């Protein structure tokens, strides 16, 4: 049994209209000093019968093929 967390975010070079809108809202609420907000997606994946490297390999593949669109997004996988 393994649990993995996958963080999918727009690449740094890609404009994030939602993050920008949230940033603007925070500024108008009076939160000064916030220089950037980026919005992304978070997935928790539970796997049975695998652990460690094998789980990581599977989840990396899922992230690359399905969870993220490599044209605009990058991802990070954590396995425990």
């Amino acid at each position, binding site marked *: 049994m393994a649990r993995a967390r996958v963080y999918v975010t*727009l690449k740094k*070079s*890609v*404009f*994030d*209209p*939602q993050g920008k*809108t949230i940033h603007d809202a925070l500024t108008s609420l009076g939160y000064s000093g916030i220089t950037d907000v980026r919005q992304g997606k978070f997935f928790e994946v539970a796997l049975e019968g695998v652990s460690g490297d094998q789980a990581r390999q599977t989840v990396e593949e899922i992230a690359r093929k*399905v*969870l993220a*669109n490599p*044209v*605009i997004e990058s991802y990070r996988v954590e396995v425990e």
Partner: protein
Amino acid sequence: MKVGVVVFPGSNCDHDAYHAVKHVCGQEARFVWHKDADLSSLDAIILPGGFSYGDYLRTGAIARFSAVMGAVKAFAAQGGPVLGICNGFQILQEAGMLPGAMLRNRTVKFLSQPVHIRVERDDTIATAGVPVGTVLTMPIAHGEGNFFLPDPELDRLEANGQVVFRYVDPSGRLDDAANANGSARAIAGVCNPGRNVVGLMPHPERAAEGELGSADGRRIFEALTLSLVRA
């Protein structure tokens, strides 16, 4: 000629596309269920607009794994004409059949409004017989239509002549205000290198008859017919 209109769970422009092909253009048409991988007897495929699989994860991200998409890929690889409209365009991008990806509209709003698009190429299955520079009026209806590719890839796309439509003002000029969703280089539609797969965000099927406010969309469906006659 017989046109297949693919129906995914969540497609909502399938009947409009079917109507435009069959009743407006007088061509044969049939629906193709997303679990059906048999496209034999079909001469062209339309992936209609809507919210396939609820657009969960990303627009078009789940639909690309449906059974029919393997068949659509093989159909296109043999030169078969494939037209993706709105969500259909997004599915073709997710499937790697068309370049680019759609970001959220720059306004972060769902945009439902008429737009003007300029035809940039007349050698694709969606623009055959429509002169370059023609301005067509039809509606957009999407939340994610902000076409994105990194600059070097945009340059390559332009060099290959794969930009088929751009958002313009009514006179056909590029104008930032006319590019409502904020698409890179005002791109509204692109094609594959073979020119037989075309995707566009505006809805020609919603502007195929005068009663709908514009009949310009009809020209896209007529082009599809014409491209088959030539092929």
